[in-house]
């Protein structure tokens, strides 16, 4: 009896709590309405369309709003809460600056989340999401990423710090037990740009989460496969280019040798002997001593050799 009562109480209590609510302060430039959008993949975080908006809630005079979470999926998903300026359409996305108008959070159909802010001047930058632990981790990741963007250091230090921050995010991705938080950390670590550097890490990471079938993981896997495929294509193209170059070079050498052989056959026996000594690096004097002939005869033979082989110097004769 006691157990049944406790179960009924727990169910009533959890359904009463299951909502996204909050109290936000806005100045007069904003419409007093908040919109909730479902973000199906991390690549859609900066996509805005009316079809992404799944609910809206007006703000009461004190800035309170609430959404029921009962219609949300059972599993955790990423959502965006945004506001729009007066005169602007509901589907407005402002990225950066003090008028940034959106924040992201994780929720499911049992989530009880409270969102609040502390400033009307920069309403979204001061948003705080409470009530569901994964959102604290999401905030930590955002703070790490923001620290990379706001660096007033020389470019060299920025590069170094950016690498350090990406490394830190990869560690967070590796150690987080929450799939969306983990993947969010990886996504923020600029992993696509540094894919080749961290290929082994990413492959092991995806293997670790191979049972995760959410659209977040599916989209990353697809992108990763595309990246892998495009790299494979690059390697294949490079391989084919080198193969073709090899054939062309081989053909060139073969034709040159054939041409050289033909030209060599035009030389007399004596000229061929002298040519061999020229190729061995002997001087005219050494050749005349070797074959016991006059220096002027050697010069005459050399001149004939040059003409027949269409060369102009001893160096060309050696390279022939």
């Amino acid at each position, binding site marked *: 009896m006691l157990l049944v009562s406790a179960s009924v109480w727990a169910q009533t209590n959890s359904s009463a709590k299951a909502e996204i609510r909050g109290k936000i302060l806005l100045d007069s430039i904003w419409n007093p309405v908040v919109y909730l959008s479902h973000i199906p993949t991390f690549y859609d975080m900066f996509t805005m369309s009316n*079809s992404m908006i799944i609910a809206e809630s007006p703000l009461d005079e004190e800035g309170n709003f609430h959404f029921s979470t009962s219609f949300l999926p059972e599993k955790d998903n990423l959502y965006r809460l945004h506001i729009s300026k007066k005169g602007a359409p509901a589907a407005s996305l402002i*990225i*950066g600056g003090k*008028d940034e108008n959106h924040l992201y959070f994780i929720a499911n159909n049992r989530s009880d989340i409270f969102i609040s802010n502390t400033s009307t001047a920069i309403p979204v930058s001061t948003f705080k999401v409470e009530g569901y632990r994964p959102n604290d981790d999401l905030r930590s990741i955002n703070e790490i990423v923001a620290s990379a963007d706001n660096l007033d250091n020389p470019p060299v230090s920025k590069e170094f710090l950016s690498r350090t921050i990406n490394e830190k995010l990869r560690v967070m991705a590796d150690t987080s037990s929450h799939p969306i938080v983990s993947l969010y950390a990886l996504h923020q670590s600029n992993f696509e*740009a540094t894919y080749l550097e961290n290929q082994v890490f990413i492959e092991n990471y995806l293997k670790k989460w191979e049972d995760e079938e959410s659209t977040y993981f599916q989209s990353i896997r697809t992108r990763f496969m595309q990246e892998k495929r495009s790299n494979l294509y690059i390697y294949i193209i490079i391989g084919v280019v080198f193969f073709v170059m090899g054939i062309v070079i081989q053909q060139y050498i073969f034709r040159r040798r054939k041409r050289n052989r033909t030209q060599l056959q035009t030389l007399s026996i004596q000229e061929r002997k002298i040519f061999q000594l020229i190729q061995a690096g002997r001087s005219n004097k050494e050749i005349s001593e070797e074959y016991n002939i006059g220096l002027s005869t050697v010069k005459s033979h050399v001149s004939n050799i040059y003409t027949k082989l269409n060369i102009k110097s001893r160096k060309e004769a050696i390279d022939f």
Partner: protein
Amino acid sequence: MKKSIQLLVFICAIVLYGQQSFAQDCTSVNTSRNIELDGSSEREEIKLNVAEDVKHLHLFINSTISTGFLTVEIYDPKGKKRGYYTVESQMNSNTKKKETVCGQMQKQISDPIKGDWVVRLIPKNVKGKVSVHSGQTQEKS
């Protein structure tokens, strides 16, 4: 005599202050481009040349579309993507009306890499307007 010294000190202070404020003065170069898209699906690139002595690069991109699908991307001279967003306007299935969608991005980059920064517009059957404003601040030495 005392008054003359005070006057001299005052003049010196003004001259020094003037020199100092001149030394810290900044110059800025602003550009602005408005693009109207009338069902366009052609990619467009806006190049912003950043010189070596530029301390800050400000970018402000605003787009309002009533039809189609538009992606705006920002690339630094090394080809690294530094920001993006997508806006998509579809016909409302209930009202059968096209709905306007807005996207806006504001970016301030300190010590930007020298070279051509690119704002790339990738539209798909887009009807709407895009404006790209940029400002470069150089510090006078």
